[in-house]
Structure formats: C-alpha cells, structure tokens
C-alpha cells in the first residue's frame, strides 16, 4: 500500500493538522507500512459477517427529558483561551 503526498495533505487538512514537508513524506511511508499490516484482515472472507460496533449487544437507555444543568458559564470561561461578553472568540469567520 503506498500513499502519495497529496493524499497525506488531503488527510491532514481533513484532520486540521499542518505537517511540514519532511513530515509529509515520513507519514506517507509510515502510513503505508501500517496499512500493509492492517490489510492482513483481507486474508479472511467476512462477507457473511455482521459488523460489530460495540462489544456488548445492548441497546441505549434513554434519559428523561429534564433540565438538570444550571448556568456555569463563568466556571467554563475561566479555562477558555479567549472570551468576550460571554462569547468564545475565534478569528473572524467570513461567510
């Protein structure tokens, strides 16, 4: 399995990472090796097997529709990088 640099760049962008040029080529190599290992899975036929998303075969337990939370803004804003007038701030988003 070989992955080219442009694909690495695409994946890095989807993941919002900004690898440098040398990291991109290292990644391409490494990911290729890891995916080769992963592809051992193809040694068996799973066409009749149902996917298993969760180890336990149980269903969700639902929550009653009740308000249990109170305003905790100040507490949460103390750990935020940048806030003003109750809002989180990010560089201006142009739409």
């Amino acid at each position, binding site marked *: 399995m070989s*992955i080219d640099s442009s694909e*690495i760049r695409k*994946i*890095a*962008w*989807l*993941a*919002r*990472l*900004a*690898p440098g040029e040398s990291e991109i080529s290292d*990644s391409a190599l*490494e*990911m290729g*090796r*890891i*995916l080769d*290992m*992963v*592809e*051992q*899975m*193809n*040694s*068996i036929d*799973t066409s009749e*097997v*149902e*996917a*298993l*998303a*969760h*180890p*336990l075969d*149980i269903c*969700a*337990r639902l*929550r009653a529709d009740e308000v249990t939370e109170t305003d*905790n803004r100040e*507490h*949460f804003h*103390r*750990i*935020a*990088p*940048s806030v003003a007038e109750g809002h*989180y701030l*990010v*560089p*201006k*988003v142009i739409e």
Partner: protein
Amino acid sequence: MLQHTLAELSALLLARKISSEELLRAYIDRNETLGRELNCFISFIPELALEQARRADKLLQTGEASALAGIPIGHKDIFCTEGIKTSCASRILDNFIAPYNATVVERLNKAGMVTLAKTNMDEFAMGSSNETSFYGASLNPWDKQRVPGGSSGGSASAVAARLLPAATGTDTGGSIRQPAAFCGISGLKPTYGRVSRYGMIAFASSLDQGGTLTRDARDSAMLLGEMAGFDPLDSTSVDHPVDDYTGALDKPIEGLRVGLPKQFFNSKLDSGIADRIDDAIKELEKAGARIFDIELPNTHLSIPAYYVISPAECSSNLERYDGVRFGYRCENPVDLSDLYCRSREEGFGKEVKRRIMIGTYVLSSGYYDAYYLKAQKVRRLIRDDFQQAFSQVDVILGPTTPSTAFKLNENMDDPLNMYLSDIFTVSVNLAGLPAMSIPVGFSDSLPVGMQLIGNYFDESRLLNLAHQYQTVTDWHEHTAEGFEL
C-alpha cells in the same frame, strides 16, 4: 506503614491505629526522596491531599467510613479531577484545569480516598511505553533504562516503586495489563461498561475501560468494588449488579477450567516468559485447576482490526481539541484555519498525530468499507472466538506480553513494532472482556506478567483465581532494588 497493602491499611485506619494524615505524610516523604527519579507523576498535589486526608480522618472518627477511607491513591492523568490539572500527558491540555470530576474520581473521593498525584502516561493513552508523554517517559523501577510500559506507565511505576499504594488506569488495548506486567504488579481491566467512562478522557470510546493498578488481587478487588457500577452519565455503562469481589477471593479454585490458547504460546514468545507462565500453570494445577488447550483462531487479526478501529475513533474523539473553548491555542492565529491547524499541529505529539492521520484515512470516503467496516466484522469474529472458548473453559490464561520491559527508545522509531507488542492484550478490548495481569516471576531480572481473561462480568472469578495464586506465591511482594521498604 508503607509496606502495607490497601487491605492492611484499611484495617489499620478503621481500627484507628494510624491516621490518614500520618499515612499520607509517610508517602509524601517517600516521594520527596524517590519520586522524581521515576517521573511517574504529572501533578503531585500534597496540599490538596492533606485537606482530603484530614477530612478522611474526621470521617474515620465517626465510625461510618468506608473501607477505602483515608488511603492515598494516584489517578492516571486521563481522569478529570475538578480544579486540578488534567493533561492527558499532552501539550494541548497542559493548561487544562478540569472543571469537573470523572465519575471514578467522584466515587473514590466519596469513599474517602486521598488523591496524592496524577500519574504520567502516554499522550492520550496512545503508546505502550509511556514515551509519548509530553512530560517525558516515566521509568521502570526494576531497571531505569527501561520503559514501565504504557499507557498507564506512571501508575504502574509508582505502585511498583511503592510510591503509592494503588492507582487508577485505563486500558484501550492493554494499557493497564502491559505496564502491570512490565512493573511486576497486578492490573485489572474490567468488562467494557463495568466502570463509568464519564470524565475519563476518550481515546477510543468502544474500547476504553478504566481499571486498577495495585500490589495484589485483593487490593484490586477492594478498589474495583468502589469504582464499578452503573452511571447514568455514561450511555455505555451497564446496569448490572456489582459482585462482592472481596467476598469471592477465598473460594477454592478446585475444578476451575483454565484454557490455554494455542495462539498465545507461539515461537515469538520470549522463552523466559514461557517458562514463568509454565511454572504458574503448575501452581494452579496443584491448587486444583484443570488445564485445557483452546483455540482463538483469529488472534492474528486483532492487531490489524485494533489499528483501524482505535485510530478511527481517536481521530473523531480528538477533534474537540481545536483551541476554541479550552486547552492550547497557537499564538496569533491569522484566521480560523490557522487557529485549527497550528493549535493541533503544535499541541499534539507525533504518535497522536500519526493515529489521527490513520483514523481519518480509514474513515474517509472510499476507504470506509475496506478498512473500518472490515475491521468491525473482524471484531465480531474475534468476539465469537472468545464466546466459543468460554463454552469450554471458565478462564483463559496466557502471557500478558511477548517480551519483558524493553529499553527506552528501543521502539520509538518503529511504531509498527511497538504496535505488535500489544498482540496478547488488544483482542480482549475488541471483545470487551475483563482481564488481569499478575506477576509470576522474573526473566533476566525483569518482571513477567501472566494474563487471565474472563467472560463478561466475571471479574470475581479472575480476582479469585489471581488471589488464590498469590496466596501460594510471593512474586507480588517483591520490590525493585532501591525501592525496598
């Protein structure tokens, strides 16, 4: 005081022969002289611990304290602790003071336990050596040139060095059992859903499970008894009664059926480890266990499936680290993309980024079926193998790791080799089963761990078997040179 196990300390505290504050001060003193050597803590918090210890002493005076009241503990730095830095050993959370407690922390606080430290770990629990920590690797007390294992390396190292009587850990692919094996202590990963994941920072949500790192099985049983139980805040937590783990410890194991999977005893297994496991099997036979050979035919596919499913979930779980609401934000972002890309590129370490990349790739359009879906199907086959095995035996037994603790930097440039060292542990996470690692001796002066795997919610049986073994052996009582008591 430091030589005592949790069970012994509990008896002393409840009988008020010692106070929590006294006990804590003894641990603080020991850490002052030995603590720094092993780098097993990210945060060491004696002042807060003293407050907790004093509260515990008051509680102990009322005579209404629980068995764990007043005993110091370390929490892996993956558990959120209110008002205390919770970094997950990542630069991206280096400044993160958790605004709430994980359910596990909350439960143990309520039981009166005293949090003395947040332990070192691999960044976001991604690693098998503790070397991916932003704070540098924690070291193995048996040989400081070697890794303590990972990702719960700091917890294992601290308990092994007797810097803490017990610690919490998490296990996604072996992160409790492997470091327990490398450090010669007892590590328990419960059934998926047994211990709440709320406030336990997610790596791979369908695999992560919190558990214990202790000196022996009895201590695991005591600790698990407080940690386990249904939590309405975690949708994957199971509403299943919590067994009396300590009550079951002394049952005889006469007639217990123990299975040895052929696939765990292959030529790749270090011969020193194979010998120690054989010795242990003989001990169990002497105690009346019946040994069977079994098959787990898809074991070789567990690493491939694991390295699709866990990075896929991790790539999504780690999207919230974006520099907006908490954690690291890069300096002077020029625009939104720059804020995201630079905060994440600078905030995450190499291994975490590697896994995010793999996970993003296997979920991306055109590859989902070939990788992610395929891995989920393999996951079912692996689970079915175990179910088949448990129709024949009560417990599955094998080595925890293919080798003993390796040297620092030995595997850092070879991620694939590092991944392969999880071969005996990851299948258990894929299946969601409970498993333990207990010390069974040494190979070239390094501890060897034996893994016991049980059926769903059969922690009691594992603890019982481990305890019975520990009543006839003393491997769990050995301490490393320089850390004797």
